[in-house]
């Protein structure tokens, strides 16, 4: 029951983030780029819940986003699945409980996401300018995502109660 409620909460967060990204944030242009609320939300969920939930949240968020924006189905899902998995892994291991983890995760994942998206769209024969995708838009997205990171992380942490958080791996087992 708790898992189901928890899953619904994650789905709701992802859904709201995807719809907001497709509508409100999609039309914002700050210095050639825009913040990616969906990516930041997936990163926050992955940090809070770990790899499996992070990957599933990324997949669902990407699917909703592609549906809402008439994008190529599977592209955003693939990118966000990998993002959710890697950040979840980071949260389960070294990032656990560290104050800078949300900012560091968003910083690294924004850059990695931009590079991966550029490569993927180029492979799919979409017209993409490397300068715009990897410099102009990336700088703006970095600033926007870092601004969103702390409040989104706090909000996601509040929605997902501490008891529901991270499926932690017992890296070190204690006896006694």
């Amino acid at each position, binding site marked *: 029951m708790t898992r189901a409620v928890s899953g619904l909460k994650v789905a709701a967060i992802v859904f709201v983030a995807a719809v*907001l990204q*497709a509508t409100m944030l999609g039309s914002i242009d700050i210095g050639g780029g825009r913040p990616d609320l969906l990516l930041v939300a997936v990163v926050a969920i992955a940090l809070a819940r*770990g790899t*499996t939930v992070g990957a*599933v949240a990324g997949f669902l968020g990407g699917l*909703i986003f592609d549906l809402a924006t008439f994008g190529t189905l*599977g592209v955003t899902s693939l990118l966000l699945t990998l993002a959710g998995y890697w950040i979840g892994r980071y949260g389960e291991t070294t990032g656990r409980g560290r104050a800078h983890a949300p900012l560091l995760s968003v910083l690294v994942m924004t850059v990695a996401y931009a590079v991966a998206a550029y490569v993927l769209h180029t492979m799919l024969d979409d017209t993409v300018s490397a300068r715009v995708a990897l410099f102009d838009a990336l700088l703006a997205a970095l600033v926007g995502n870092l601004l969103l990171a702390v409040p989104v992380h706090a909000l996601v942490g509040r929605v997902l109660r501490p008891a529901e958080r991270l499926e932690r791996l017992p890296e070190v*087992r*204690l*006896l006694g």
Partner: protein
Amino acid sequence: MARNRPARVAVLGSSVQRSAQSSSSRTNPALRRRIVLGVLVLLSLVLVTLYFREPQDGSLHTMRSAGTTVLKPFQVGVDRVVQPFRDAYGYFSGLVSAKDDVRRLEAENRVLRQEATQSRFALERSRELQHLLDYVSSPLFPQGFEYVAAPVVAYPPSQFERRLVIGAGEANGILVGDPVVNDDGLVGKVTDTTTDEAQVTLLTDEKLAVGARDLDGEAVGIVRHGSAGQEALILDLVEKKYAVREEDRIVTSGTRSATLEAAFPQGITIGTVTFVGQNDTDPYKQIQIRPAVDFGSLHSLLVLVPKGERR
């Protein structure tokens, strides 16, 4: 400050044996998350592949349309909620950039105007030079002469002076007395030179006279400045016995006489007869000529330089 921890012993590096259940509980989550990741990645790749391969009316496209339809109300709702904020953002961001935009557009406009003017000037110049080249390569160009093309660099300083300056001089082989023409006809002659420039006295100057003949008749005479206007010419010293009609073409005769300082090559167009008259007191006809050259619009000229050794 000592931490208040319960007294527990870490098993890492110790000889404590792990139970089979604990080993299994560590392996399962790792395996599970890898399986989940693999499935999701595979699913994404399958979606991308199928989406690209199937036609527009395929099942995935239909599913996407259905999904979009389901999401549409949420999108519209969010869109309406955020629209005022978006408008406010657009308004203020527009205000911030408005001054910069105006400044940038004004600068751009200035540059474009200059470029347009330069382009038009270059085009006109190109047309003139093309006309001159056509003239040079035509049979009308006088035999025994070479040409020096030169731009007009200074126009008559006042309406009383009929001289201008061209941008070629002695260094280009130009000497005083050389005829100056353009593709329309005779312009004048060189009356002064420096190394790089030359002064050209126009045919409409009072001091200039040219031996001329009627191309459509037998009359010969001298063309010089007339009294009817600044750019009017007359064909003087034509005896009454010669028939001259209006619209007859007047060209240089190539002759030299006591009153003419220099000979112009024969056959260069001077103008067209506009009036022919005579009276009992004057032994010659009164003939007015409309010059072929527009003396108010001279930009590029040709100086005729005799071939061979100069004087």
